[in-house]
């Protein structure tokens, strides 16, 4: 392990948790379970490109567990964990192919975050009827993913200078 990275882990994890908290303060006028901005993903994507995929993975894991326990409780933790891990896996995969821009990676992340959450939600309520929400969540994943990707791209421009 590169010890120079440790301060970055702490800094980025703290930022990601903070983003998650800020997000809770912003009301979203869509009464569909699972629709979120995904502000924390800004930090995860920045880390993916600024450092490396492995570091971003650890920070994502730490963020989900900590903010889950702090703000959401155990059930909420399971939803966000499944969403975050699925979305991270897809983002890492797309980034590796090198065929997508940072915005594309972010869009895929947003979409699969929602897909992951709905799978766990359907398992939790033991009802496949949850799939009814899938179209709305796919569209919202595209929109939020795009916004998040643009924010991350802009921030990275400043970071690299």
């Amino acid at each position, binding site marked *: 392990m590169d010890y120079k990275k440790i301060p970055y882990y702490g800094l980025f994890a703290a930022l990601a948790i903070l983003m998650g908290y800020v997000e809770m303060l912003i009301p979203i006028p869509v009464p569909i379970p699972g629709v979120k901005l995904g502000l924390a993903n800004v930090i995860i994507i920045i880390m993916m490109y600024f450092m490396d995929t492995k570091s971003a993975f650890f920070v994502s894991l730490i963020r989900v567990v900590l903010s889950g326990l702090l703000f959401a409780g155990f*059930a909420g933790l399971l939803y966000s964990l499944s969403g975050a891990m699925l979305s991270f896996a897809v983002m890492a995969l797309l980034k590796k192919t090198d*065929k*997508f*821009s940072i915005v594309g990676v972010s*869009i*895929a992340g947003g979409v699969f975050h929602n897909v992951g959450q709905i799978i766990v939600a359907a398992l939790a*309520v033991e009802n496949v*009827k*949850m799939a009814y929400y899938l179209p709305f969540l796919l569209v919202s994943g*595209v929109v939020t993913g795009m916004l998040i990707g643009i924010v991350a791209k802009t921030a990275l421009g400043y970071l690299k200078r």
Partner: protein
Amino acid sequence: MKKTDLLLVVLALVAAAGIYLFYSAGAEKGKGVEITVDGESEAFLPLDTNDSIRIDTEDGYNIVTVQDGKVFVTEADCRDQICVDHKKVSKTGETIVCLPHKLVVAITGDEPGDFDAVVM
């Protein structure tokens, strides 16, 4: 944005439209509403009678109301209140979900009694 990014967007939107059409194509005016908690059927109300029912779950309560053939959640003590803000539902396949209480309100085309016709 690269071309592949756009492809991704188009794919996601097409999938969304496809699933939406699949649901709305088979949708007709529902006959009843089935309320399940944690996968277990709790109650079944016909849509043609105005009625209200309080469902107590392990995690809290929800009050589901049928009015003029439409179903909505009037009250709940869950933390996100998404089910209360949800639009009224009346067509088959439409659902209202209260995730914190694992409660699902689903419109069906079935009459009360033929529960085995519910396709899971």
